């Protein structure tokens, strides 16, 4: 068998006319030409592999970059931000010397192809981002979106995704404390599997992804490198599936490597413990996890963020499959790997710790005093690049965007004009149907497959408004996180839809008593090559950046997932927003469940006739049209202040934010969780239908002990927040006076029976 000569830098310079499979690797012609221009010659196969994955949409944000800049430009002044956008994850000061890092990412396409592994490795990837900052991961959250609940493919995808998240996260010992599960036909061929994680560290433990100090060693540790996930970044995440089917390894090998990675949570657990132990002994100068684009990403990012260059010997990478080519080793997305930069005299101790945890660790290179990233294979130099050109100087596109021509018609199709229930009986039936609908129904069948207790610091977990974790056992300091998004609102108006997602997550954090501090986002959209989608994206980013500025919560990082579509049909634009908050003492947290009979129920905020994009319009009329609820960020801020003060001063015993499904949904959830009913009185000036089902933003329902009634009312009055007494916690029914009565038992059957019936 004849062997082709190794494609070294020298060989590439000598053979300028060799055709390379740049198109198969996902590069456009002009992008390839730019690579040739940067290098002053054709790239080697290995260089091409690196550029192609690093310049993919997934890694380079080439379509979204021009818009994402707003998050920096409009960033509000915040003392809390310690590390901002651009690192593995943002870091926020939460007081008492603690810092918290958090981030949300997508693993949408892999999870459709292989639900279990796609979702599992999504958790694995986000957790490594958290460790790479120097933090111990303390919790995960999972915002999920699937096709119609009764569609056969949902039954294929959802159980696998849920089992994958549980199988990985449970094995890592990370409590799963929040997230969402949403069903909508628009996600039929393209589920959204977003994964978020939070980590905690002391300020002085923050680590960054940079390789500095000539002579320092580059250590690859964790799993061996295999053939899984090759081209995952460039092909799976950056093209639609039609294009993905002609994926190639770039080496001319006939065999198609699996593009979805396979996870080993046990290996990751060892990686966490061994990394944290190395941090504790201050052995690490810089660190980067290997996720999308594997070694290509880790080496080029570490080198370009540091002060020098880097030299790597690829032969030293421990392999699972000895037939892998150097290109494949550079592109492999094998999971559970990290790359650390360690001073020479600390290498032995670092390797010792790895050995203690049975983690394979290998010195694969060193930091140089030059400015090139050089990679060697079998003695030949196969990569010689300026690492910045790989990691940071990727193409930037000003994609054309245009408000779609159907947007006016969609907004004119006013949901407020839909036929409403005409009798109390009809209203009751619609309420029952609503709380039993897949989106409004209890998700405990799903969340009970996740461990929410491990680590022994979980104060609140789903279905609470936000998850809450105790950070310090002595002081009771804690952090809260909520993730929200509403693709229906965003479809009607992407600018305000994104703001509503932020407002809801912000409100959810405040409802539990925590002060919102910072934001991470996962922006899920269709193809950026479609001007209508690009308009949705641009509008959503502008809306989110404006709202973050107004609420004073900076975006600390996040993720963009494009090409979420089936054929020509894009998903609803779905910005998912995570808000992180802090609470001085978790003992003051406010739960959703009603605590005591006799407590007074108050509605905070204004209720208007707002049904555009509502759960009611979807469940009862299968309708999407009109405008989403109005956004009033100053009101959101005031509401949050009241909720936090009331929680701190013991004025409220339970609270629930109002969002999809409106007031009745919130009251039913609080009642079922507390095992106590409520009597509700329709306030003057509102009809029962609007009172119960409108989705006006900036609202919450709170239960106030009678002893606190005056104090609570005075506080709201003094600060100018509209407050309406709407009833009392009482009995074992939800009794809407003058309208209807539903027993908790029939509500429980309706609310809790749906998901198991569809999926179990």
């Amino acid at each position, binding site marked *: 068998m004849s062997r082709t000569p190794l494609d070294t830098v020298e060989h590439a310079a000598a053979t300028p006319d060799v055709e390379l499979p740049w198109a198969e690797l996902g590069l456009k012609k002009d992008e390839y030409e730019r690579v040739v221009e940067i290098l002053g010659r054709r790239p080697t196969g290995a260089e091409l592999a690196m550029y192609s994955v690093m310049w993919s949409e997934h890694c380079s944000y080439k379509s979204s970059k021009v818009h994402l800049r707003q998050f920096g430009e409009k960033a509000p002044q915040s003392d809390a931000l310690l590390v901002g956008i651009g690192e593995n994850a943002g870091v926020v000061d939460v007081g008492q010397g603690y810092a918290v890092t958090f981030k949300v990412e997508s693993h949408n396409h892999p999870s459709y192809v292989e639900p279990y592994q796609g979702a599992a490795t999504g958790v694995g990837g986000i957790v490594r981002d958290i460790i790479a900052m120097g933090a111990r991961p303390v919790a995960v959250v999972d915002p999920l979106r699937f096709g119609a609940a009764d569609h056969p493919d949902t039954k294929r995808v959802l159980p696998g995704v849920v089992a994958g998240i549980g199988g990985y996260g449970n094995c890592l010992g990370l409590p799963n404390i929040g997230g969402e599960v949403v069903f909508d036909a628009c996600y039929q061929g393209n589920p959204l599997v977003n994964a978020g994680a939070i980590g905690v560290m002391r300020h002085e433990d923050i680590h960054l992804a940079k390789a500095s100090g000539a002579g320092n060693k580059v250590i690859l540790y964790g799993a061996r490198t295999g053939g899984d996930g090759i081209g995952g970044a460039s092909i799976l995440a950056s093209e639609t599936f039609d294009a993905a089917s002609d994926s190639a390894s770039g080496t001319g090998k006939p065999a198609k490597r699996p593009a979805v990675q396979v996870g080993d949570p046990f*290996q990751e657990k060892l990686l966490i413990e061994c990394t944290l132990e190395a941090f504790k002994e201050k052995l690490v100068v810089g660190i980067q996890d290997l996720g999308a684009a594997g070694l290509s990403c880790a080496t080029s990012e570490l080198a370009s963020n540091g002060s020098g260059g880097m030299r790597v010997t690829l032969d030293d990478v421990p392999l699972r499959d000895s037939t892998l080519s150097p290109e494949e080793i550079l592109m492999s997305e094998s999971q559970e790997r990290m790359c650390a930069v360690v001073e020479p005299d600390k290498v032995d101790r670092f390797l010792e710790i790895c050995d203690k945890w049975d983690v394979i660790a290998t010195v694969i290179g060193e930091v140089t005093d030059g400015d090139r990233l050089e990679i060697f294979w079998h003695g030949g130099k196969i990569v010689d690049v300026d690492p910045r050109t790989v990691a940071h100087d990727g193409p930037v596109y000003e994609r054309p965007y245009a408000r779609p021509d159907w947007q006016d018609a969609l907004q004119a199709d006013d949901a407020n004009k839909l036929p409403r229930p005409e009798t109390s009986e009809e209203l009751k039936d619609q309420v029952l149907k609503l709380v039993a609908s897949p989106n409004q129904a209890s998700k405990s069948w799903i969340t009970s497959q996740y461990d929410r207790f491990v680590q022994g610091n979980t104060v609140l977990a789903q279905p609470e408004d936000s998850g809450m974790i105790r950070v310090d056992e002595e002081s009771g300091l804690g952090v809260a996180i909520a993730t929200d998004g509403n693709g229906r609102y965003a479809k009607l108006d992407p600018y305000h839809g994104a703001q509503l997602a932020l407002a809801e997550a912000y409100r959810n954090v405040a409802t539990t008593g925590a002060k919102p501090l910072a934001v991470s986002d996962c922006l899920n959209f269709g193809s950026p090559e479609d001007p209508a989608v690009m308009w949705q994206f641009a509008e959503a980013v502008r809306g989110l950046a404006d709202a973050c500025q107004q609420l004073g919560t900076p975006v600390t990082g996040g993720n963009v997932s494009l090409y979420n579509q089936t054929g020509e049909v894009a998903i609803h634009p779905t910005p998912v927003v995570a808000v992180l908050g802090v609470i001085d003492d978790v003992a003051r947290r406010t739960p959703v469940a009603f605590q005591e009979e006799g407590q007074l129920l108050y509605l905070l905020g204004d209720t208007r006739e707002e049904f555009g994009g509502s759960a009611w319009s979807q469940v009862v009329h299968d309708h999407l049209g009109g405008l989403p609820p109005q956004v009033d960020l100053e009101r959101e801020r005031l509401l949050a202040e009241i909720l936090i003060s009331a929680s701190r001063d013991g004025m409220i015993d339970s609270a629930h934010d109002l969002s999809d499904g409106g007031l009745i949904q919130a009251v039913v959830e609080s009642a079922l969780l507390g095992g106590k009913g409520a009597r509700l009185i329709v306030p003057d000036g509102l009809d029962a239908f609007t009172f119960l089902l409108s989705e006006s933003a900036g609202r919450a329902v709170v239960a106030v002990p009678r002893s606190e009634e005056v104090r609570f009312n005075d506080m709201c009055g003094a600060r100018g927040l509209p407050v309406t007494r709407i009833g009392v916690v009482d009995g074992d029914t939800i009794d809407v006076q003058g309208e209807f009565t539903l027993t908790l038992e029939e509500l429980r059957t309706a609310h809790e029976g749906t998901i198991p019936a569809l999926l179990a």
Partner: protein
Amino acid sequence: MTARIGVVTFPGSLDDRDTQRAIRLAGAEPVALWHKDKDLHQVDAVVLCGGFSYGDYLRAGAIARFSPVMETLIEQAKAGLPVLGICNGFQILTEAHLLPGTMLRNDHLHFICRDQKLRVENAETSWTTDYTAGQEIHIPLKNNDGQYVADEYTLDKLEAEGRVAFRYLDFNPNGSQRDIAGVTNEAGNVVGLMPHPEHAVEPLIGTGRTDGLPFFTSILKKLVNA
């Protein structure tokens, strides 16, 4: 004086730090033990905590059972050293034949995490004297392989000797035979159960109940009074 209670960390152990906290809250001194170290460092009792030792690969508990630390532990447990196995720890104890029976995958084939109601059947073991027999408690349960099985002869024997220590009440979460949630050895010094008492020791955390604390106060009293 107080008692020193060891908590073994295997690769993949998850609840080691939580268990140490529970021991501390009960007033005893937790001692971290490492799976590669045969030495038990003169602890007065040992807890094998929950998690996925060795990723639950091969079979839950099957690999950890052969760790160096287990050699000493098995020997001393047979000589009377109090040992509590929680979840994965219970699985390790059955794999080590310190407790009878074995655990299969949950009958519904899903991981399950819930606040589980139990009845304390035996309040005379080293780990349960602060309960009363027949007491009903709530303890978080979270596992993938929690279905307790044994042959009929063994089950009858366990029942006859009062060695079923805990039983699931109201709802059998995993298909365990005779609703068995935990068992003890003949001497009552080795106890294993699937639910997690270390996650029910603080009023604000987890389910907000403290029904698990008596495990740790029971053993402390026994050791201090010994």
